[in-house]
């Protein structure tokens, strides 16, 4: 029997009209590959089947049956290959999809973390700003206190000077009041007498030298 492989030009049949059959098969294959002019394709196929039928003296329906079976097998194989490829692709797609989901989750997590960090940093910044304001206030208060302190120091210095003056005045007034006492008068007289005696002594010393 004729064995039609995946490509029509390979025919194992060896008869008198092999050249014609091959020519028709080649032409048909070209048309099928180009996928154009279905009418012409059908006509060529009919011619080919007629020629094979005639050559092999077999009924056309049988040739059709074999060709269809063969074609079915060929396309079934192709379908199977495509199915396998599709399955692989599906698996890859699913893997990629899961990876995408995983990455999406990770990105979401990162975004959330980033948001948290940003919020935290904002909070810290606000705290720092608040502390800065507090420090500024404290600094201003310190300046005020320092100013007041310098004023108080000045007042204190003035008060101290005033106190010293009063103390001095008190001391002098007390001394003045002491001058009136008899004890003071006696002491003064004694000292004057001593001074006179001293001067006499020194005069004697000097004049004797």
């Amino acid at each position, binding site marked *: 029997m004729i064995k039609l492989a995946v490509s029509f030009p390979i025919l194992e049949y060896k008869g008198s009209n092999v050249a014609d059959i091959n020519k028709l098969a080649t032409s048909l294959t070209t048309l099928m590959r180009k996928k154009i002019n279905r009418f012409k394709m059908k006509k060529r196929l009919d011619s080919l089947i007629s020629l094979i039928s005639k050559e092999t003296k077999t009924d056309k329906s049988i040739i059709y049956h074999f060709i269809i079976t063969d074609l079915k097998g060929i396309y079934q194989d192709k379908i199977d290959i495509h199915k396998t490829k599709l399955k692989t692709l599906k698996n890859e797609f699913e893997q990629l999809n899961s990876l995408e989901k995983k990455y999406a989750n990770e990105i979401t997590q990162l975004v959330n973390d980033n948001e948290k960090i940003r919020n935290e940093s904002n909070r810290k910044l606000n705290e720092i700003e608040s502390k800065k304001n507090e420090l500024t206030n404290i600094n201003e208060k310190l300046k005020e206190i320092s100013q007041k302190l310098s004023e108080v120091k000045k007042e204190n210095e003035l008060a101290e000077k005033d106190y010293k003056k009063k103390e001095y005045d008190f001391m002098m007034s007390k001394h003045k009041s002491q001058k009136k006492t008899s004890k003071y008068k006696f002491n003064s007289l004694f000292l004057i007498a001593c*001074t006179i*005696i*001293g001067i006499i002594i020194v*005069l004697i010393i000097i004049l004797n030298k």
Partner: protein
Amino acid sequence: MNRSLLIILLGVVTIWDTVTTVYGTYTIFGEGTIQLVVSIGFALLLAGFLIRTIPIIKNPSEELIPVGTKVLWFLAILYDLFTSFTGNMDLILGNATGTQKVVLAIGLTLFVCSAPIGLSKLFFDPDSE
């Protein structure tokens, strides 16, 4: 110690300080009646300055005269230390010799020169009572 007795004691030492000042000044000025009179006058002035030590030092005024008086007081004490040292060396420690004489003279000088300041304290400072 009795305050009056202390005044008398310090007064006597102050007089001796004045005597040494007269002697020291006269030694510097040279012989002559005028020099002697000036020496006595200068010594009395210096004694007056030193007896008024407390009012001079404690005066809180920052005007020219009180501040100038403080400067003069400082010069007076330096001059007094010098004349007291010379006077004590010549009049008291005439027979002593060497380092002993100098040490004794320094001790006597410090003792004698502090007497008018102590007297001033007793006279003027009410806290001394």
